[in-house]
């Protein structure tokens, strides 16, 4: 049984309500932070914990906090990014639905550390019912003196507001989120300046994922040093993984990043193996935009070691043989899934969600979708595969925000690892309409020395 920090109490009956949450030891972190620590000490504690941003990029949260510019007389803002729209990711929803006070508590502590008197939760528009849950939690917290003016006599004022988005994936990008929060069109801003200097209403702003904020609470409770002891290397603490796809037990799991991918998929504690006794073909371990990996590379790194569920091990080998932790949207594909169709689905998603501001992403995502559609429906050409590769290469890294990269990576990884499946679609268009390519060699053990050597 792995250590649980976030979801430990998530299933206590009535934990959604303040009384139960408080009885179970809630709001201790606020008490500790506001009564015994200075804001800088809180930041220092988060730094010590080694907590990495749980939204996808994995940037150390404490560092991000310490970059926040603090000019005199200018308000600072903390924005909680609850615009969880990455396909395959639903961990924040779970957290907010079951234990909303954990987020509120984390937000109060983080607001105190950053000096944010007005803190916002920007929540995905589709999570309409969660807005009510959060607003109820905020109201309860306020009634009990955890929000408002002069909290716990510390002189610190804080209000939390919930703002619903209108259902755009791009508004999960922090600068687009800020634009949207300001009431503008959700176009990502051109960086620099970074939000830490000029964010919401041109004031210094920190944008953090729901899970990152929630993780501040256990860090306060058990201290940063203790938190850092959980996990391995730079992957400290626990991570929520939302597992879905062809597994026996889809759901949100809290892992402590010391288990292997194989254990995560096959153990009864977590996913419980592939559904209907089928075999594993491929997996996207971190939400739709991270590279897909075939079964053999997923379970073992190119060096032949077991791949573990943490930031370093998943990205071992770079994009050539590795992938990314991302947001923890663990999508499992069994032997009956078609990688081409899967890639088409993702390409359609990114075409639909591109904001249209910069040209490579606006034009390129649509082009990739059309080509993939041709290949999937038996109208593809051999040259289309190279063309796809070229288009994704032209998009990646040349766009304003990471959505361009996120659109390019899945296509690139699919071609990199599953090229023969694409070629099969082109070569046998009729067969490709009737059956799937199957598992092929994607689960075969890797050659002993797979590392590319001249």
């Amino acid at each position: 049984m792995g250590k649980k920090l976030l979801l430990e109490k998530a299933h206590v009956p009535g934990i959604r309500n303040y009384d139960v949450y408080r009885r179970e030891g809630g709001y201790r972190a606020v008490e500790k932070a506001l009564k015994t620590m200075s804001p800088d000490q809180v930041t220092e504690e988060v730094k010590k914990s080694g907590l990495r941003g749980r939204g996808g990029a994995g940037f150390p949260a404490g560092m991000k906090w310490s970059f926040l510019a603090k000019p005199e007389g200018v308000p600072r803002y903390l924005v909680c990014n609850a615009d969880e729209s990455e396909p395959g990711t639903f961990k924040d929803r779970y957290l907010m639905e079951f234990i909303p006070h954990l987020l509120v508590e984390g937000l109060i502590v983080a607001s105190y550390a950053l000096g944010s008197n007005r803190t916002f939760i920007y929540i995905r528009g589709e999570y309409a019912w969660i807005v009510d849950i959060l607003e109820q939690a905020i109201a309860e917290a306020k009634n009990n003196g955890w929000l408002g003016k002069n909290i716990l006599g510390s002189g610190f004022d804080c209000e939390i507001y919930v703002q619903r988005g209108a259902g755009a994936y791009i508004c999960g990008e922090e600068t687009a989120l800020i634009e949207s929060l300001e009431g503008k069109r959700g176009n990502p801003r051109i960086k620099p300046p970074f939000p830490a200097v000029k964010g919401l209403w041109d004031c210094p702003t920190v944008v953090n994922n729901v899970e990152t904020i929630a993780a501040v609470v256990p860090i306060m409770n058990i201290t940063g040093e203790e938190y850092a002891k959980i996990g391995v290397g730079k992957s400290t603490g626990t991570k929520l993984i939302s597992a879905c796809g062809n597994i026996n037990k889809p759901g949100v799991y809290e892992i402590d990043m010391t288990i292997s991918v194989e254990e995560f998929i096959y153990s009864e504690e977590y996913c419980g193996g592939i559904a209907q006794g089928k075999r594993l073909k491929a997996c996207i371990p971190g939400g739709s935009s991270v590279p897909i990996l075939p079964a053999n590379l997923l379970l073992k790194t190119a060096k032949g070691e077991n791949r573990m569920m943490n930031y370093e091990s998943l990205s071992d080998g770079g994009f050539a043989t590795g992938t990314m932790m991302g947001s923890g949207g663990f999508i499992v594909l069994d032997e009956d899934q078609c990688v081409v169709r899967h890639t088409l689905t993702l390409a359609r998603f990114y075409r639909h969600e591109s904001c249209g501001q910069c040209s490579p992403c606006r034009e390129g995502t649509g082009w990739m979708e059309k080509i993939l559609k041709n290949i999937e429906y038996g109208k593809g050409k051999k040259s289309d595969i190279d063309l796809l590769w070229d288009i994704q290469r032209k998009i990646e890294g040349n766009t304003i925000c990471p959505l361009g990269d996120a659109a390019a990576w899945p296509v690139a990884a699919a071609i990199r690892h599953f090229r023969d499946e694409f070629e099969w679609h082109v070569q046998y268009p009729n067969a490709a309409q009737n059956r799937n390519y199957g598992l092929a060699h994607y689960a075969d053990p890797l050659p002993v020395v797979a590392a590319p050597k001249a």
Partner: protein
Amino acid sequence: MADQPKLFKVTIDNITIEVEAGTSILNAARMIGGDVAPPAMCYYSKLKGSGGKCRTCLVEVAAGSTADPRPMPKLVASCRTNVMDGMVVKNITSERVQDARKGVVELLLINHPLDCPICDQAGECHLQDLSYEHGAEGTRYEFPRRQFEKHNLGPYIQLHMTRCILCYRCVFTADQLTNKRVHGVLDRGDHAEIATYIEKALDNDFIGNVIDVCPVGALTDKTFRFKNRVWFLKPEDAHCSCSKCSGKVTLWRRGDEVFRVTGRKDQWGEVQDWICNECRFEKKKTSDWVIEGPTKVSRHSVISANHYVDTVKPHEALPEVMGGRNPRLLMDIHSISEVNKPEIDLSKIQGPAHSNDFKKSEKPKGQ
């Protein structure tokens, strides 16, 4: 010397220049001039906040600064990246940049209708120039091009959304020149479009400037629509006393007829002074204007190729290489063609040849 602004040394394509702190790479490159200046489709120095969107001005930063000489991992948009002291930038000397730029141009063109033959912008279109310089001859795009519902923007401005590259310049223009913007970008992604949402005419006094800032033929002058090709017109600097604007314009005339009025553009294709709608759309008589003289047009521009009178005949090279013999004539086109008579000297015709020009010589009308 405390007043002197801080100067940063920046090297672009092996040319070093000293610029003030806070200058963008693009502007530093423009100070050097020539081929070193990256193309810019969306950046407009006179519009605050513009730039960063088209990605044609991407450059490689080989060294960030003297203090931190690490290269930047990604190509950066030179219009929105400021120079640092000791920065080393590669534009045309970087293969990576050339490759990326070619990719951007290809992507900009995949949904462009390429209707240059009927586009009023042809000849002064930045996208045309860009694709000549950086694009490929062919396209790899095999799908129907994007189309939009047509929107009417009123009596002066014609919108062709299919040609738009979403540079946002017209949006910034309306924001910064007028007190109420009625058009904007609707929708998102590849179906984003410039529109007014509720069909509405753009009728602000200065809204005509969106025509000048548009890098492509998406926003054109309705009063000039299909009237003439720009390269048959003669641009002249002119001015008038106008109560609303500076009155400094470029007149585009053919003979005595004023075909259109635009702002005066500098060498980067940016207007020097914004002009008002009255000057642009209403004053279409030579007598309205005081003409200063011909506008300087870059000799590379098709507009300056406007020498149809008394041109030198092409040098006949074939007899030379064939040892004095003339090539054998298989078919004389003139024996079939109704037009294109050899006795008409095309160089004597003002402007483009018209079938009337040939008919006249055949049957000269008795006066």
